[in-house]
């Protein structure tokens, strides 16, 4: 009996909040596996949430491996920046470079970040409000870098919200798009004019963008620089093996560490609070207003354009690549099977990636 008590004595340290976190971890794992929602991140986050919420867990604490990984890669923002190299190597800027005006939609779709900043500042300190607002960037690495740089108290909730909502884009966006557009607007066709983009343009674009964004928002140099470095590796044509490695091995490796380390911020006493619920709500507001911002910008532009644009492509301006572009394309096909919006939507989606990083740099400039 004494031996049994010694073996299972740790159960006395268990509390209901830990069990609640196990269930939340289980839900994230379920969404990742059964519903295929961002499994690369939700599964490690879900499992990590269980790991760190076991009583007297050896995974966290002063010498815990998750604490060590957190200090090594998230506290200094290294993991998300390295992941950006992989993301940059995956992105093809061709559709955007063939029609650069599409970048305006990516810029407009960042409105949700600043709207959420104003809303969140009613409840949180400015630095925390800014960290919460960046969920609207719909970009995990940017959210982590900004929240960490601003030393937010709510990094765990922000990370979970950012990645969860990125996975929920196909569910969040369509109702917002339908609410803000008429049937006639959704039927507007946008014939794609293929313009060949030279290799020189594709090579110079990441370099020039880094210089311009870096001068305007110096705090964004790391974010934009690593993203564009990855893209330069892809486009230069002489580093195919590095490009392959960055896109696959590097991205997957960092994703594994990032996912499970994020969970170290999901300890029950830190995570289960009214503030976390509010952050999840504000994150949703950010995504919805982002989508709305892009669509409304397109509708305003149409007032002045002879060849109208389908306002749905404005919704693709959030950084959730490539999901947002695919959502818009699918909605276009559903309305009119002959209306192919994929290239334009992809171009806008890619521009959203760039604009979200610039927005992150702006936020760091203002509050860093």
């Amino acid at each position, binding site marked *: 009996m004494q031996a049994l008590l010694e073996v299972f004595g740790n159960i006395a340290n268990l509390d*209901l909040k830990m069990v*609640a*976190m196990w*269930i*939340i971890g289980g*839900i994230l794992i*379920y*969404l990742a596996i059964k*519903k295929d*929602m961002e499994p690369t991140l939700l599964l490690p986050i879900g499992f990590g949430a269980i790991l760190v919420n076991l009583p007297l867990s050896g995974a966290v604490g002063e010498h815990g491996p998750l604490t060590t990984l957190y200090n090594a890669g998230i506290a200094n923002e290294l993991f998300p920046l390295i992941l950006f190299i992989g993301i940059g190597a995956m992105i093809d800027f061709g559709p955007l*470079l*063939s029609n*650069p*005006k599409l*970048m305006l939609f990516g*810029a407009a779709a*960042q409105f949700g*970040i*600043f*709207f959420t*900043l*104003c*809303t*969140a*500042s*009613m*409840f*949180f300190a*400015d630095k925390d*409000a800014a960290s919460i607002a960046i969920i609207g960037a719909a970009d995990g690495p940017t959210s982590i870098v900004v929240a960490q740089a601003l030393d937010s*108290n709510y990094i765990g909730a922000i990370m979970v919200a950012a990645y969860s909502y990125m996975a*929920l884009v196909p*569910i969040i966006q369509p109702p917002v798009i339908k609410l803000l557009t008429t049937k006639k607007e959704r039927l507007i066709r946008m014939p794609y*004019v293929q*313009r*060949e*983009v*030279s290799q*020189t*343009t594709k090579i*110079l*674009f990441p370099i*020039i963008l880094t210089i*311009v964004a870096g001068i*305007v928002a110096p705090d964004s140099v790391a974010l934009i620089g690593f993203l564009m470095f990855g893209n330069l590796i892809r486009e230069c044509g002489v580093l195919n093996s590095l490009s392959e490695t960055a896109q696959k091995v590097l991205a997957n490796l960092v994703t594994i560490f990032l996912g499970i380390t994020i969970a170290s911020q999901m300890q029950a006493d830190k*995570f*289960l*609070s*009214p*503030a976390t*619920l*509010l952050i*999840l709500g504000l994150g949703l507001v950010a995504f919805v207003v982002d989508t709305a911002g892009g669509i409304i910008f397109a509708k305003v532009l149409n007032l002045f354009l002879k060849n109208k644009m389908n306002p749905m492509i404005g919704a693709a301006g959030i950084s959730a690549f490539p999901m947002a572009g695919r959502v818009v394309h699918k909605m276009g096909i559903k309305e009119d099977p002959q209306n192919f919006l994929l290239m334009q939507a992809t171009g806008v989606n890619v521009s959203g990636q*760039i*604009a979200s990083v*610039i*927005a992150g740099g*702006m*936020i760091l400039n*203002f509050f860093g």
Partner: protein
Amino acid sequence: MKKILSVLFALILSFSLFSFGAFAEGSANIETTVVEESSETVSSEIESSEPEKKEDAKDDMDVDLDFNPSGVTRNLKYMGLGMLGIFAVVGVVILITFILNSVTGKKK
């Protein structure tokens, strides 16, 4: 439809767990305050009847969520500057891209 319903169900369940956790946190804090009061001297008991504010909010997520509408007006200028900055950068990039395309590109 089934997928949306199951995802919504999962989210509602998560929110319920959060609410439960927040309620449990609140109850634990009330109990903690009661235990602390009973162990203090008379003068300390009077002082400890005021809610304790933890300095390090990272260790204790029982942070007061004060409603402060002035935050909106305070941050409106950042909204304006931020959007202006993003459009300015994007505008310059569009211009440079047009120049690059016209110098090096071909149209089919």
